[in-house]
């Protein structure tokens, strides 16, 4: 009885999802789209800077240097300049984001181990991207000195000071993209749960719920069948978003896909349980969506460790971060992607998701009576 009624609800929900293009999009493709957009917004070093080069040196070393910095595609060589005026002009016209000036004697000095300096000119209109371009160039310059010339990384300096990141173990290229994309992947996977919450509100809104409550279907059968359907559909969304992370953003995937999907299921359980809780207090889809975005989407960026690490020594920050499912799933997704951790290394955040989900599910169920307003 219990199984067959739950299964009846499940089948009906799968049909609703597959037949409503908007819901289908929201659950399967929207996470990947949102991941694409947010990754560009949040990964400031991920940009293709156009470089114009004024090479006074014209040596083998300087040519090798230019080839090196443009090798991986983050810097595109736009043009060779013949004088300073040309550098300024191409920056002003927007043809180049950065003008690199290599002084006479650069190759000789570098090979001899004498300190030498390059100059970078950037367009200050967009300070953030300018600073990032400088930082990237600076990192590459050190790398060039160390790897190609066997010299100290400090040999060649830029005539613009910029912070150079330390060498990070799990993220050798120091790309914030690598830690940002898995984190954002965790954030965008709130969407299936939002679609689930909207579906709960929709049945109240359209009145089909009223036809259902007169049947012997019980609350947990109704919610269970729905939850199962949206979890399954959400898995497709998780898969698509993971593909985008791996193939579009080229984020290394060191862990196991099965583990990631299983963890995603736990995350769905936690977020959808929150949805059940929310659905108890709303009667319209609009309110449901607003609450969901305010409660899940916004906090993701500030308190869940996405943009800055959680301060584990501060009680307040722990109290605000830990009850949020995103906190744990962001940690899980990053660890699976970048460190390749499995269940043994992830049981703590996984348990946190189960506990949070169970608390909210129980509370939601207790409040969710089959009743009409």
């Amino acid at each position, binding site marked *: *009885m219990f199984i*067959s*009624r739950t*299964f*009846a*609800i499940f*089948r*009906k929900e799968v*049909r*609703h999802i597959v*037949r*409503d293009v908007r819901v289908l999009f929201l659950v399967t493709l929207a996470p990947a789209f949102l991941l694409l957009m947010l990754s560009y917004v949040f990964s400031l070093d991920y940009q293709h800077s156009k470089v114009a080069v004024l090479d006074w040196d014209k040596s083998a070393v300087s040519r090798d240097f230019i080839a090196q910095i443009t090798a991986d595609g983050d810097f595109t060589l736009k043009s060779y300049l013949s004088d300073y005026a040309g550098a300024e002009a191409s920056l002003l016209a927007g043809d180049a984001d950065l003008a690199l000036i290599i002084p006479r004697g650069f190759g000789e000095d570098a090979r001899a181990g004498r300190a030498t300096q390059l100059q970078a000119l950037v367009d200050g209109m967009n300070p953030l991207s300018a600073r990032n371009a400088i930082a990237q160039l600076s990192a590459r310059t050190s790398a060039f000195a160390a790897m190609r010339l066997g010299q100290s990384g400090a040999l060649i300096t830029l005539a613009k000071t910029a912070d150079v990141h330390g060498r990070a173990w799990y993220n050798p290229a120091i790309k914030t993209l690598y830690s940002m994309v898995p984190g954002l992947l965790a954030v965008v996977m709130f969407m299936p749960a939002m679609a689930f919450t909207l579906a709960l509100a929709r049945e109240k809104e*359209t*009145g*089909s719920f*009223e*036809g*259902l*409550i*007169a*049947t*012997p*279907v*019980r609350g947990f059968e109704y919610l269970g069948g729905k939850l199962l359907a949206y979890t399954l559909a959400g898995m497709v969304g998780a898969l698509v978003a993971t593909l985008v992370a791996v193939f579009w953003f080229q984020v290394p995937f060191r862990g196991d896909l099965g583990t990631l999907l299983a963890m995603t299921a736990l995350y769905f359980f936690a977020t959808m349980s929150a949805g059940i809780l929310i659905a108890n207090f709303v009667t319209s889809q609009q309110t449901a969506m607003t609450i969901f975005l305010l409660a899940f989407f916004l906090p993701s960026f500030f308190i869940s460790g996405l943009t800055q690490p959680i301060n584990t020594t501060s009680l307040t920050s722990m109290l605000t971060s830990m009850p949020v499912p995103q906190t744990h799933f962001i940690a899980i997704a990053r660890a699976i992607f970048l460190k390749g951790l499995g269940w043994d290394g992830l049981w703590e955040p996984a348990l946190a998701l189960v506990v949070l989900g169970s608390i909210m599910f129980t509370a939601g169920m207790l409040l969710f009576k*089959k*009743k*009409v307003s």
Partner: protein
Amino acid sequence: MENAIVAHDLTKHFGRFTAVDHITFRVPRGQIFGFLGPNGSGKTTTIRILLGLMKPTAGLAEVLGMDITRQPERVRAHLGYMSQRFSLYNDLTVIENLRFFGRAYGLHGDKLRAQIDFVLQMAGLVGRERQYARLLAGGWRQRLALGAAIMHTPQLVFLDEPTAGVDPVSRRMFWDLLYRLTSEGMTIFVTTHYMDEAEHCNQLAFIHNGHIIAEGTPSEIKERMMHGQVLELSPGDPARAVGLLRAAQSDGRLQADEVALYGLSVHVIGADIAGQQATILEMLRAEGIDPGLALLIPPSLEDVFIANVR
């Protein structure tokens, strides 16, 4: 157990608003019980209480011999409900809707298939199994909704304004279906504000502002509550005729309880209308309105209802 429903002193408050105010009635088994009243009179609230979806503030409701407030789930297995808002799924096909509701009521296997066939036959939906519910015309949708509500062969079924917005032919077909169901022993509790439909019910109760103002068979209600005569006129200009007669009624030239427009005809209701017939016709002619055919007719339920609600 001869009564499917026994309601005693049922009362429901919503804050300071009293939706249902000490109502008492019985619904005999195997009959069509019509629950009539204007919008907002407490019809839907009463149904929700009787389905166990809402607890009454006070009073007792016995449904199929059991206290609905104590054992709602047990009783509900034998109840059907077709809500006022269309409760089918528009993005499911006819057969998918029936399968879903059948399973929701715990049917499966051969029993489920047999019931689906029965409903398709009954509702005349054979050949339309694969059509989406949203594409069905009003009459089909309504019969499908009824079918979905009775898949589990309930003993008692509640229909909340089932024929609202459906064409007359489909309404007629729907009522024929209801007769068939009661002949098989089902009890039907139906709300409507179509008075012609009320005449088809075995038993009626009028609810107004949360009070039951009349109860009985249609003919009992007419006899008991209508102390007057009804004169039907078919004047050339019905709207102006009503205006004139109402003016006469208010300044005492006409002794009548009610002057009402019925489509193109006008009903004048009162204790002694036959005696004033000549006066009435004269009044209209004096204003240049041809009174048309004037007939003393037996009161309809609508006459009774309007005369008593005012």
